């Protein structure tokens, strides 16, 4: 396996459409709930341990070879907000396109055929990680990392936040990201025996509520 493949997959410049999404921070900024590095830290930390953990677990499970259709259904059940389901599938389609170019393989082609409307993004991420020769823990790391870099990058654009401060927020979260990735990979390892019900379903009321409110805005900078 190539360690560098993980860097490629987790790079914010990986062309899978993520740059147009704020991970909910655009709504939080509008509500003045995120306004500085301290509140951004709290937002990213909360997102990591809720949506981030859930996504990392699904990604890890997809890497271990769980049935993508079963995982996709589990992702639906863990994503009650339709705006977030649509976003996840859209990002899934976009990641699939990039992954098929980067690591062409039958599993990715099959996913495109089985779920033409798009699979949930973490499911695609997991299969892409496998195609790139990565492990379930690697996929979980990529998903957990993405769950905090997305809002942090968006906050820099929305608030004109000092980019060094935003990067320091991410750096402080590294241990938490590692812990979440390990928790996700451990849960994923149990799916084969115990079913997808063992995957974490950590959720956040505010992310679900504000995603729908944001989707109803007439004017917004970010798609989600």
């Amino acid at each position, binding site marked *: 396996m190539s360690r560098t493949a993980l860097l490629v997959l987790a790079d914010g410049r990986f062309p899978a459409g993520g740059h147009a999404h704020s991970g909910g921070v655009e709504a939080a900024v509008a509500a003045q709930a995120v306004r500085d590095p301290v509140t951004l830290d709290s937002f990213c930390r909360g997102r990591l341990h809720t949506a981030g953990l859930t996504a990392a677990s699904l990604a890890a499970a997809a890497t271990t070879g769980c049935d993508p259709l079963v995982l996709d*259904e589990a992702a639906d*059940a863990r994503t*009650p*907000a339709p705006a977030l389901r649509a976003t996840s599938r859209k990002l899934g389609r976009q990641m699939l396109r990039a992954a098929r170019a980067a690591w062409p393989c039958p599993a990715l082609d099959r996913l495109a055929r089985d779920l033409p409307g798009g699979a949930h993004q973490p499911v695609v991420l997991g299969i892409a990680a496998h195609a790139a020769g990565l492990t379930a823990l690697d996929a979980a790391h990529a998903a957990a990392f993405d769950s905090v870099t997305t809002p942090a990058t968006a906050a820099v654009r929305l608030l004109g936040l000092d980019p060094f401060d935003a990067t320091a927020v991410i750096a402080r979260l590294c241990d938490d990201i590692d812990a979440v990735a390990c928790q996700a990979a451990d849960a994923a390892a149990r799916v084969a025996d115990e079913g997808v019900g063992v995957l974490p379903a*950590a959720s*956040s009321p505010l992310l679900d509520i504000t995603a729908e409110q944001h989707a109803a805005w007439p004017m917004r900078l970010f798609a989600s």
Partner: protein
Amino acid sequence: MSTLAEDRPPLPDTSGVVATARVRAGHNGRATTLPLLSSDGPFQLQKLRPRGDLARVDVIGAMSGPLGGDQLALHADVGPQARLEITAATSTIALRGPSDDAATYDIRLTIGDDAALHWLPQPLISTAGSNLRQTCAVDLAPTARLVLRDEQVLGRTGETCGHLTSHLTVLRAGRPLLDQHTSYGHPHPAWNGPAVVGSHRACGQLLVVDPSLTPAARPTVLLGNPDTPAHGVLVPLGGPALLATVVADTATRLRRLLDQALHRALTP
């Protein structure tokens, strides 16, 4: 499919109360019957006068709790064609117990074909120092209907929240329809931050499952005003179900929006 309750290692022996109350509803061809109504521990089950063809049971909290170390369970089984409403007379108050062990509250709701359950308890209040793990596992037959309300108050007035985790799993025809796990209070990172509940001290959900629902025809309804301390959304799920998620500053405002959501859910 396993539930969290089954996954957990057994809790250590404590002096806590271990109790399981059970309700079973059936249908005798004319009306809903209640062949089993078994109170236990703090749960006193009382039969109320039916409303039309809807059988009704009230759960009366006979003692305070759950306290740390308690292992409480309430199982309701609604057989084919039966219609049952379960309400509660009082809030459930999670309190600090003699030990720091977590209390568990395990709710299992099974609803058969053409059956309906209205699960409408009072709020669960997490007081300072308490530690409660609530699980609610719902198993719906393909043609079963459900109205489920779940309200959590994070600390009494002026009080911090205890440690409260809540896991709601809804299976329909054996497939996952909704799976949500919330964790509030110390030591959960940033649980009161802007990505989880913020400064809101009450949060709740209302779930309506009805096989005749067409989720695609039900647009999202915004509840309350995002600029005020009480707001939420009513959304269609992937299956034939609607879910309201609401946060508020008080239990009263929370209930008002959930009532509004129920009204919107039932009147397309």
